[in-house]
């Protein structure tokens, strides 16, 4: 399932996938895979992404 909230949060901060990838220390393709729902990140990576985007885990990764 696509993670549109992550994509929206990133776009809201006017960041590219590469910018976010550089901040959290992964490849651009990994961020792309997370957004497309092709890869489930570990909790450590989720936390790093949340910190970079100023969001909580619930806001980005919790499914209602």
């Amino acid at each position, binding site marked *: 399932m696509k993670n549109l909230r992550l994509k929206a949060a990133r776009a809201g901060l006017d960041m590219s996938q590469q910018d976010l990838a550089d901040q959290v220390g992964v*490849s651009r393709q990994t961020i792309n895979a997370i957004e497309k729902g092709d890869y489930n990140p570990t909790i*450590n990576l989720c936390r790093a992404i949340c910190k970079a985007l100023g969001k909580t885990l619930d806001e980005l990764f919790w499914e209602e």
Partner: protein
Amino acid sequence: MEKKKNIFICLILTLALGIILLPFFFSKDEKGGNYSNSKWTHEITVKDGTVTPGSTTTDFTIARDGNYRISYGWLPEGTDKNKIMELGPSDAHFLTVIQIFDSKGEQLFSTCAGYLFADTVMDLPAGQYSAVYTYFTDSDSFMEFAKENLCPARQAGQLAQDMGFENFGGDAVVRINYEMTWRASGEDPVFALWIFVIILLILTIVVFLAVSKKNEDYDERQQLERGRAYCLGFMTILICMFLAITIDALELLPVQGYVLYAVSIFPGVMAFVTYCVWHEAYFSLREKEKSLLIIFGIIGAINLVISITAILEGRLGVNGRPGTSILNLACAVMFLELFLVVFLKKIRTSKETDEED
């Protein structure tokens, strides 16, 4: 720091390539050096059942004292190069004896008992030498030769007929291409040292790359994909090895066994790299695709040129079966396939980036 590392890797690769190519430079020494190879053609005329000349001589020079391995090949025009090792006396046309004489006319070597293949080690001082090739001068001399060396006397006539010694039946001109190679046996330790240095270099490069490419260079998704790729590569090699063992044991293909086993490794490497590249797990976070694309392309092209040259010169086989030269072909196929995969992936990635922008 990154730049220094890349320069260091380039230096190591250049050095390795240089050492690999070193023997090829040595092999191009002038005649009489440590290694030399000569080719020439003799024209034999058959008229009224008589061969002219009865023998031919080729002089050669040994520049330094030492043990030399001397080997010959002869190839009547129109003969398949891949079958040179299977030549019989009739294929070799009129050749009966090869002898080597020193400058004083003393015979140092002679083939005997119809065994027309010469490959021997001799202790030769520096100086001038002659290689003399003696031919059957007429059909009777061939019959005598066959009786003495090839079969019982009562079968000699039938053998001559079976061999189809047709050139004795009418006038003809036969051109025979000869090749003689002599190499100092003392070079063997150098070659052993060369192989040792190559292995050492490969190990050094592997260790260097393993140390420099720590796991931290790959993110968690890449490590996961690389694990799957290793598994895929390993299973591919296992299957290929099983096929190679089956083919070798049942002799299903006319290929040398060791070639089959060596070639089995290539599909495994291809599976690993292809999977990694396609799942964006081959390049670490700091690596760029462009440099690897160039390296794959160059290595693939070099191996392709080497294998095409080998095919054109008829060096692809041993005893009519594909030999180690086919590894260059396999290497070329592998690197060109990887080049194509990296190239296609690069195009796809750039499209994705454009869409994201």
